């Protein structure tokens, strides 16, 4: 998948043959059905009666204590009752959860572009609301958790950024997910853009997947294991297609008509603690699927694209150092990813089903890209970062390279807001280099979210 203009496209209506529909339905039923009996298998070492008994005993113990407090008990337990007047109630978090409301949060992401040669933002704005994201998250029932992220932006209006159902009760370290999600390819693609330590995704992600990274709609499964004594996780997905379809590109038959036309990915995460303060993640990813590529036909022709396979391989590492005692003030992150995009070459010309031969205008060679990023914590609230990028541009026939170097100063007034300033020297594959000055402000409303790791 390359960024515009030759994004994959599918304008034809999808019409599944009956057999494939049956396969899809069976797959979905199997995945959903697996979760329910698995819940019954949970807690194999204890019986249900024991669990119920445990809960009842807990409640009874608490009630006894509260009764003791009210009765002026003079034992050690009752000592607390004597000064209970200025104390609160017993613990347990009240809040939306007690009313069965989901956690609702809002993230605002504002970007200013003070580049000396004009704005480099989409739409040419100097200041813009890049995105406002609204999230609703909660347990659906004993078997699933639901997460919905809606994005609002001036450029795209409203969009479903992510919406997925995740199992919570599968055995054997398994987890399954159904819906739209950030594709688990590489390290940063699964990080929300507003959570990045840079203003934008690295150029290799923007170039290969798009400015907002790669999302997929379909099935996800993962398993955690540690046969070698450290954390390993295998994540696999099957999604409807690779990236957003490009409007106006029509293939002779829908790209996803056959199962081979869907998108598939796999990622193997390997994480190891080097010391208490330092750790390393080294992971490998692969992604394959068919994409609609433009062909040289008259503008009036209905079929103007041809589906070819694209496979992307990736490797990434993240090294973190954060001393436990001084972790509020000192930390280092070093990170890098390399991706190699392999485009199937159907030849300079292709033969259409009606027998005509036309020129193929899609990419016919492979492209590679990479970045390296470092971030040093200066104080409790201030961080300094730098990134270098190199990526062969798939829109150029000779794989001319884009290069960039950027620096970032981040300031966090609190855990819930961030201000950052960035300078980037960008040398595009074609054309003159530009200096970019970017400002960013993000904020979060709502419940405290876990810190990304």
């Amino acid at each position, binding site marked *: 998948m390359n960024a515009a203009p030759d994004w994959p496209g599918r304008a034809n209506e999808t019409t599944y043959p009956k057999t494939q529909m049956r396969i899809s339905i069976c797959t979905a039923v199997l995945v959903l059905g697996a979760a329910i009996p698995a819940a019954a298998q949970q807690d194999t070492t204890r019986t249900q009666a024991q669990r119920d008994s445990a809960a009842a005993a807990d409640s009874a113990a608490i009630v006894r204590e509260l009764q003791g407090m009210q009765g002026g008990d003079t034992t050690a337990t009752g000592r607390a009752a004597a000064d209970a007047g200025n104390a609160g109630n017993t613990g347990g978090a009240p809040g939306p959860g007690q009313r069965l409301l989901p956690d609702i949060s809002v993230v605002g992401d504002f970007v200013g572009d003070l580049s000396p040669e004009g704005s480099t933002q989409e739409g040419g704005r100097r200041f813009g609301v890049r995105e406002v994201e609204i999230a609703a998250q909660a347990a659906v029932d004993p078997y699933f958790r639901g997460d919905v992220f809606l994005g609002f932006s001036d450029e795209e209006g409203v969009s479903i950024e992510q919406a997925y159902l995740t199992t919570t009760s599968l055995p054997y370290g398994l987890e399954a997910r159904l819906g739209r999600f950030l594709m688990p390819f590489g390290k940063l693609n699964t990080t929300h853009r507003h959570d990045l330590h840079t203003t934008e995704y690295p150029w290799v992600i923007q170039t290969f997947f798009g400015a907002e990274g790669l999302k997929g709609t379909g099935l996800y499964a993962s398993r*955690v294991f540690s046969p070698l004594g450290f954390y390993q996780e295998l994540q696999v997905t099957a999604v409807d297609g690779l990236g957003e379809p490009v409007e106006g590109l029509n293939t002779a038959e829908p790209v996803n008509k056959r199962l081979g036309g869907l998108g598939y990915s796999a990622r193997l995460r390997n994480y190891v603690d080097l010391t208490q303060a330092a750790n390393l993640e080294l992971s490998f990813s692969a992604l394959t699927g068919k994409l609609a590529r433009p062909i040289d036909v008259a503008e009036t022709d209905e079929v103007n694209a041809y589906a070819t396979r694209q496979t992307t391989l990736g490797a990434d590492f993240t090294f973190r150092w954060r001393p436990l005692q001084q972790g509020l003030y000192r930390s280092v992150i070093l990170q890098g990813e390399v991706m190699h995009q392999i485009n199937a070459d159907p030849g300079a010309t292709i033969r259409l089903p009606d027998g005509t031969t036309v020129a193929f205008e899609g990419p016919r060679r492979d492209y590679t890209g990479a970045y390296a990023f470092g971030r040093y914590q200066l104080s409790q609230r201030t961080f300094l970062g730098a990134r270098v990028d190199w990526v062969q541009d798939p829109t150029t026939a000779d794989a001319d390279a884009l290069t960039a170097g950027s620096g970032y100063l981040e300031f966090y007034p609190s855990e819930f807001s961030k201000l950052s300033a960035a300078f980037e020297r960008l040398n595009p594959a074609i054309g003159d280099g530009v200096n970019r000055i970017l400002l960013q402000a993000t904020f979060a409303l709502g419940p405290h979210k876990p810190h990304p790791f």
Partner: protein
Amino acid sequence: MRGTMIRTAALAAGLLALAGPAAAQRPLKVVTSTTDLADLASEVCGNRCQVVHISEGYQDPHFVEAKPSFILQLRNADVFAYVGLDLEIGWMPLLVQGARNPRINTGGSGNLDVSQAIRVLDRPTGNVDRSQGDVHPAGNPHYWLDPENGRRIARLFRDRLSQLSPADAQTFARNYTAFEARLNAAERAWAPQIAAIRGKPVVAWHTSWRYFAEYTGMNIVGFMEPKPGVPPSPSHLAGLIATMRRTGAKVIVMEPYYDRRTADFVAQRTGARVLVLPPSVGGVRTITDYIQLMQNDVGQLAAAVR
């Protein structure tokens, strides 16, 4: 053929017979979010549980990294005990979700929110928003620094673990009784020190010492943080210095994971002493259990305020 089947069946039966008792006697695996909970669980368990903790005693429990290696600990835990009241909100959900262990999910038999046994302080009564700093809407979570709460936590472990492993209930009850007796004796021993502390004005860095203050009677006249979780600002410190001069506060109590230089700056201008107290077991190397922790903190504070 029949002989082979009989031998296979006998072997399988033998293996099952061996595996059955082994599974029944498997010690409970208890994972706790903090060292304090780990020690109290160990007091109750004796050798009947395998107890491990996630955060260290010298680490700010609000800001623990959700390392995948912790997921490996949690994925086969029988019990995950945590402080609650949103203390671990910044990292615990990622670990619990990542562990894929239904026992420790909310509502699971091994999900143990210890705050349910505590009389919580500082629970906001009006509207709460982030302009008040990093407030805990359900109340102050630093409750273990009061021996009474230590007893409550230990009792909660006794009750829950007894239900999960009824065969060990008597052992857990006996261990709890022994722990309570030792704690009672320790409290009697440090009672004179508590008397020396009572009413003495001190400054604390964070609201982590509220329960300790309730127990010892020390009078917290100000905090280094202007609001919970917000770093000290110059204007706030100027006001704090004036408060300390007015009230005669001569001790600044702080945790080992905050930047001491700011406390030293205030101490130099007020003639106060900076007292770095471990807020948790393992906060300094020599503090290896809960009673030692309380003994150390009470003793050091009493010496400082005299």
